[in-house]
């Protein structure tokens, strides 16, 4: 392995070095500074005689005398089942003081795309115990469902609640062995120490740590490193899922910081920027992360992704949530208004969506009436929401009896269905039963999205009449 002392330009996170042998694209580089530190980086561009290197730890301390070594391979993640229970930094080095990791194999972190022909369509319901998700935006194994949040909102609590409560119905009845096949891979990118502590404390409190692998790039860690962290996490997740048969839930937070790092590198390379200065290839880049969720035919395990992103200015047309929404299979919105009303979790179901829901629910999967109930509640809540603006202008008295019922429904939907608290774990049965209680406040004729047979068997008659009486 040749060592060079040929750095001729240092700019932001990038180092340019002259070389006299061909260097591969994406190859790993070690840079040794004069004071003996070793920094790692990756080849971003390889020209004959000149390579651009992106340094993960940042370029401070590097001067033109530093020596550069090309390792002749792309970045690999050492993987083994023993990673479960371990905590690593953003570049995959253990920071928990535990024993050295003896890898079973070393996997390229730029994962190859799954052949669409080899995929298995996800349709196994995951019960999260959160009504807003289970009832209205069902999560299934192998799905990628991001949480769209914003600064100051409790997205972490929601993610933790899901990680804690997520189970598959078959698992509940099964023995412990089944349950142990569940694993969490947590990839933190640029979150604060406090946020990281919140996650770690919760993992420790609930004993989840022993079935978790944590990669933590914190707010004061180098930004460029953030482009590697999710890939390490996903490589580990794929190994656990497709080699070791685990059902892996990958939590990535915060994707906004990841995109900021991409933009930083793009700017340093003087690339032509796309929208709002983010690189034009951000869609492709994000897709290479999000698309690493899924199931593969003939393999037991699955990778389910729950990325969290904070929308700058609560704006979902910002490139980060926008591109994410185009790649992922739906999204869960955490809502500022609901949060200030004290609703826990403050999930706004109206813009939220789970694209894989329709195939994961219904008879034999969840409950026969699930789809119809969800649809009807959506429509009713949307109608109630709509009327609220009107009430502000004309007052409740000016509205018809029908309109008032919808207003009541929207109110009850938020306080009884959505607001369950971060510690409550509701079964799907409970969720749907609460749904029927609320729907029964509406007259039967209004339930036009529900099959008549289901109305006959689930509509709560007495309560319906009681409410009708008070509304008069």
């Amino acid at each position, binding site marked *: 392995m040749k060592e060079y002392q040929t750095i001729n330009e240092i700019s932001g996170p990038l180092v340019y070095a002259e070389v006299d042998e061909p260097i591969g694209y994406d*190859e790993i580089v070690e840079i040794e500074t004069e004071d003996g530190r070793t920094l790692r980086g990756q080849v971003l*561009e390889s020209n004959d005689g000149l390579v651009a290197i992106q340094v993960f730890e940042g370029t401070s301390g590097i001067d033109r005398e530093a020596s550069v070594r090309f390792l002749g391979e792309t970045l690999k993640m050492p993987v083994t089942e023993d990673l479960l229970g371990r905590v690593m930094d953003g570049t995959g080095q253990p920071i928990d003081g535990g024993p050295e990791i003896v890898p079973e194999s070393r996997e390229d972190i730029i994962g190859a*795309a799954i052949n669409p022909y080899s995929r298995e369509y996800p349709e196994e319901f995951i019960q999260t115990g959160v009504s807003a998700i289970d009832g209205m935006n069902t999560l299934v194994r192998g799905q990628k469902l991001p949480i769209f949040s914003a600064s100051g909102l409790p997205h972490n609590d929601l993610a933790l609640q899901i990680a804690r409560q997520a189970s598959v119905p078959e698992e509940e009845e099964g023995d412990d062995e089944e349950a142990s096949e569940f694993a969490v891979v947590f990839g933190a990118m640029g979150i604060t120490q406090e946020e990281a502590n919140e996650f770690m404390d919760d993992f420790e409190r609930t004993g989840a740590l022993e079935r978790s692998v944590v990669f933590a790039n914190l707010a004061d860690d180098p930004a460029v490193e953030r482009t590697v962290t999710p890939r390490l996490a996903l490589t580990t997740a794929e190994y656990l899922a497709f080699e070791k048969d685990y059902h892996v839930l990958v939590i990535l937070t915060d994707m906004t910081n990841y995109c900021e790092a991409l933009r930083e590198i793009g700017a340093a390379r003087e690339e032509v920027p796309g929208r709002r200065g983010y690189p034009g290839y951000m869609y492709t880049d994000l897709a*290479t992360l999000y*698309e690493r969720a899924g199931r593969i035919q003939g393999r037991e395990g699955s990778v389910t992704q729950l990325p969290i992103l904070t929308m700058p200015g609560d704006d979902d047309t910002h490139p980060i949530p926008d591109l994410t929404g185009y790649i992922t299979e739906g999204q869960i919105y955490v809502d500022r208004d609901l949060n200030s009303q004290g609703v826990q979790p403050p999930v706004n179901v109206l813009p939220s969506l789970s694209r894989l829901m329709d*195939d994961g629910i219904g008879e034999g999967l969840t409950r026969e009436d699930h789809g119809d109930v969800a649809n009807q509640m959506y429509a009713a809540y949307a109608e109630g929401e709509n009327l609220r603006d009107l009430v502000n202008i004309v007052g409740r008295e000016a509205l018809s009896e029908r309109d008032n019922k919808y207003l009541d429904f929207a109110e009850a939907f938020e306080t009884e269905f959505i607001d369950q608290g971060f510690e409550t774990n509701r079964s799907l049965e409970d969720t749907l039963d609460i749904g029927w209680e609320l729907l029964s406040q509406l007259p039967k004729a209004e339930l036009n999205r529900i099959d008549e047979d289901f109305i006959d068997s689930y509509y709560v008659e007495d309560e319906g009449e009681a409410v009708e009486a008070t509304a008069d």
Partner: protein
Amino acid sequence: MSQATQQDATTGVIESVSGPVVTARDLDARMNDVVYVGSEGLMGEVIEIEGNITTIQVYEETSGVGPGEPVENTGEPLSVDLGPGMLDAIYDGTQRPLDVLEDKMDSAFLDRGVDAPGIDLDKEWGFEPTVEVGDEVSAGDVVGTVEETVTIEHKVMVPPDYEGGEVTAIESGEFTVDETVVELDSGEEVTMHQEWPVRQPRPAVEKKTPTKPLVSGQRVLDGLFPIAKGGTAAIPGPFGSGKTVTQHQLAKWADADIVVYVGCGERGNEMTEVIEDFPELEDPKTGNPLMARTSLIANTSNMPVAARESCIYTGITIAEYYRDMGYDVALMADSTSRWAEAMREISSRLEEMPGEEGYPAYLAARLSQFYERAGFFENTNGTTGSVSVIGAVSPPGGDFSEPVTQNTLRIVKTFWALDADLAERRHFPSINWNESYSLYRDQLDPWFEDNVTEDWSEIRQWAIDVLDEEAELQEIVQLVGKDALPEDQQLTLEVARYLREGYLQQNAFHPTDTFCPPEKTYLILTAIKTYNDEAFDALDAGVPVEDLVSLESTPQINRIGVQEDYEEYVEELKEDITEELRGMY
């Protein structure tokens, strides 16, 4: 992808690598030649030549590829293999069959440097000639047929670049695609296998005005915004508004002979859904499995970006080939925005001067070239065939003023605007009836009037007028509430509500409602019209509007969609509504 011949290959050396863009020195190549890059032989295409330096876009991941490695030129432009075996197949963006790749790579993950022909070269097909020795044939003429799938008879044609001549010998029986089945006195030999460069439209005699609708079984489309066979349509919408479901619905139910579905830079799981669903679904026309008329191209978002750029062309070339046989082909491209973004990405790596929002200046030209390949054609062999193109557009932030949507709208004649507000209210398909349009309406009306009902356009206009009036009234309602409106306007709102709920909404996941024949589309409208006419008569007779909007029978209108025996149901419902209303005065 076609296996280019390598006899006159020339070799160059890699100069630089930056993502999917590679430059090579000393490569003797023409623009758009296919080259094999690096020691692994990754497939690429020449996109720029500057002096001694050739720029190549590579269709595979370039990690680890470095300067000094060889580049080999095939001397052939990017081409697809055309022949029997393209239906019931699933390809990546350069026409490599994904099932063959899985076998060859022995992995569920896509490896690099593996190539495979687009059609099975070893499989034998039963060839039945339709010409005789002594017949005169020219380019494009059909010389025989092959039963490609249970649904489709594949027509073997003289390739468009042949001179043609008198048939001197004919074979009949089982052959592989590369064996000669017909010989001509010009010395030319016809096989079942053709190659065609993807960026070049296949020739036809003339493009004609389309007059037949592509019936989709979707009420809002057939009823209000129809597309012609040979027409173009765009479906723009923000994420979550139902682009993909609409595309899937069209792929499933449109009355085309052949469907080419291009998944361009979209989700892997969605393609898997198509692969799993289509073989089990029935073709509404023939009752055969849907896959027997479908060719799938899946270049998901995490597959190489250059192959995403080419997948659109691969798809349209396959579509044109079946058009040449005289078939009506529908091509769905989901999504053309990802294709445009792939162009942008490559363009920015080339450091080209960007146009609007970083897209290359040639974006509009490329889009119109693509959509112009659609149409209702008279083919060189005298048959007529059509290619209808339906492109999904994914505007960033749902903002239709962005370049891809705007440039697309300048070309296409049908615009189905998806609306996030409707989707949020679970109004599906969430096609906004105020913003959408179809410029084919007038030229298709005669067909509907001949084949469905005489008053097709009349009753449609009535529905549009009611919906327009509702949109205006809603603005007032938002300010003062519904009860402040005069009675007749309150009644109009109620009629419009049934139009929205019973007619425009359609449940894609309900086994019956998912496909609505034009007759049923029409009957639903007549039921609502009956309510409208009778209720207004009752209003005139002094019945208060509160009674007219709370009938027992009318909610049944919203259930017509899910009825299998809809004719009887609608008849009874109309009687019930009439009876109930007339009983009030």
